[in-house]
């Protein structure tokens, strides 16, 4: 991406965010949030549309093989629950592409389901936001974009995989009785695997304030403990 390499660590142009959500109301809100935060925004209603815009759809495996100029984006923010291609599927497609895997991907969901969060982080999502998205969430997103450019220009290879490092997972709201099981078709994964980049001790998730959730061990927290957590905000 040319824009990234222009100056060392400094992005001189407006950051461009691609937002994906099947809900009309949510699209309107996220677009507004991003624009208020001085981002350039492109909004689409499906994962398929997103891939088409990027130039990563079924017809082509790489955007460099022909004259097609895909959309240049600095961050992708997508809803998790969408018909057809879920946000998770979209995430996998992007992280599975050599051309696009460096783009930070953030997942949004109206449900605070821990195994779901873990699964997204393990697949390389930069962050997971529980809806409703707030301005403070968007502010945090902007850090990912500038961090990405700094790291890419400073280091030869890509920055350490999406995994557990980086931004905090915010809003662990347990105000409603969210089930441990995921609503999607795949069985909930309580995987004990630990990503290499994360710290070995489970992060203390007893406070609802932003704290980096660096380890999937979180998923093994007792449900009782989770239910007892007070819902703040």
């Amino acid at each position: 991406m040319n824009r990234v390499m222009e100056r060392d660590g400094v992005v001189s142009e407006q950051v461009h965010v691609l937002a994906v959500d099947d809900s009309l109301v949510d699209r309107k809100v996220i677009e507004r949030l991003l624009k208020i935060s001085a981002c350039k925004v492109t909004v689409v209603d499906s994962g398929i549309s997103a891939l088409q815009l990027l130039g990563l759809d079924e017809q082509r495996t790489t955007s460099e093989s022909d004259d097609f100029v895909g959309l240049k984006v600095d961050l992708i923010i997508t809803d998790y629950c969408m018909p057809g291609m879920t946000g998770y599927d979209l995430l996998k497609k992007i992280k599975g592409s050599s051309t696009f895997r460096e783009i930070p991907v953030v997942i949004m969901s109206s449900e605070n389901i821990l195994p779901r969060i873990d699964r997204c982080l393990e697949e390389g999502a930069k962050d997971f936001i529980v809806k409703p998205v707030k301005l403070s969430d968007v502010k945090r997103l902007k850090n990912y974009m500038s961090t990405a450019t700094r790291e890419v220009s400073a280091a030869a290879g890509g920055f350490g995989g999406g995994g557990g490092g980086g931004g905090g997972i915010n809003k662990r709201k347990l105000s409603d009785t969210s089930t441990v099981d995921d609503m999607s078709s795949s069985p909930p994964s309580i995987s004990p695997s630990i990503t290499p980049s994360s710290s070995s001790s489970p992060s203390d998730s007893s406070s609802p304030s932003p704290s980096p959730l660096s380890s999937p061990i979180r998923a093994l927290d007792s449900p009782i403990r989770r239910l007892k957590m007070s819902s703040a905000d």
Partner: protein
Amino acid sequence: MDVLQLQRKLREHQAAMLREFSQLQKLQDESSPDFVIEVVKMFFDDSENLLNNMTRALGQVPVDFKQVDAHVHQYKGSSASVGAARVKNVCATFRNFCEAQNLEGCVRCLQQLQHEYSLLKNNLQYLFRLQEEIQAAGGSIPTIE
């Protein structure tokens, strides 16, 4: 009622709407003065659509609770996005009833949601009527602050 009074009324109601749809408060500014009302209208249309879907789904024999839940899930999402707290809370309860396959509970929740919907509908219609009266009297529509 003169234009000034109408405008004051409208301002008060708009402020009340902003308070109710709390999530939208910070998204309003001078560059986009109609944003809140636009989103609320969208939410209103969305509501009508989803409520129809839920009603239809609950009227089937046998009831497909997963289908009902899918609609409620969507409604819960958009209500959270605009800050319609009451609707969101009813949806949460509704989802529990879907999971328990409790038809009676579901129907009660649907009725509550329909009630919320008609409240919103009445308010919106009233707001629009005020706007029309102001414009007919030659006044300008105060922007939401």
